């Protein structure tokens, strides 16, 4: 069970309540595929990922980026039980998608960078700490059902 301070709770909920999921999601996933190109291994069916421009303009990447952000939404709405909230998603990523759990952290870092770029000065050290704590719990929960 993760303990959240009021500041952390408020910060996380505030960021997500103001977030444009269909902007942040596509930007974060595209950035991940560009910055860590080996992550493209999971998107063989997505068509043209040959360069940064192709990745950014790829409609399947955009759609999937939005899907991922809505997946994070589940954790935001269940801050006190993220582990159980993600049991099925963890099994899915392990058994069906075969995603190396180390890659979750890479995507999380890209989400952080995109949110930082959106919020600018507002993304203070304290806000970053709360946001990264949230993502760390998500990443850990998604890796829990691997065996």
């Amino acid at each position: 069970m993760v303990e959240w301070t009021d500041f952390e709770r408020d910060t996380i909920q505030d960021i997500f309540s103001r977030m444009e999921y269909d902007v942040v999601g596509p930007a974060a996933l595209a950035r991940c595929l560009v910055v860590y190109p080996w992550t493209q291994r999971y998107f063989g069916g997505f068509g043209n990922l040959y360069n940064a421009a192709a990745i950014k303009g790829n409609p399947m990447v955009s759609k999937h980026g939005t899907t991922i952000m809505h997946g994070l939404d589940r954790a935001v709405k269940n801050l006190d039980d993220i582990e159980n909230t993600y049991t099925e998603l963890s099994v899915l990523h392990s058994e069906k998608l075969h995603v190396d759990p180390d890659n979750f952290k890479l995507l999380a870092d890209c989400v952080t960078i995109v949110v930082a770029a959106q919020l600018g000065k507002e993304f203070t050290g304290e806000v970053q700490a709360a946001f990264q704590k949230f993502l760390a719990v998500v990443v850990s929960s998604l890796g829990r059902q691997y065996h």
Partner: protein
Amino acid sequence: MSLSDKDKAAVRALWSTISKSSDAIGNDALSRMIVVYPQTKIYFSHWPEVIPGSIHIKEHGKKVMGGIELAVSKIDDLKTGLFELSEQHAFKLRVDPGNFKILNHCILVVIATMFPKEFTPEAHVSLDKFLSGVALALAERYR
């Protein structure tokens, strides 16, 4: 993951844009680091206080960014160019090399907040590769 000519050009271009703000970047990156990764404060236990934006943090931020500027100028051979800094980190400072990654991440976050337009995914990948190369060069003399 060595730096291509494209990476070097991207790093030089980004540096020319951000270097005038290097004091602010150094201050923000270190201030952020001690808040987000409180374990890093142990390296500053000789300061009277370790708090974001303090005079010590500001001065140290300048030193760190000076090191980055040096690295940009030695981008064609980081190992040789950062030899002395590596010796200093290995034998005098003895900073666990795991922390280089932490500070690099904070630098990237600060650049994202200050230069969102310039910090495109293409610039990001080249800068990330460069900072990873700097970390590797800094760790060269450790053992």
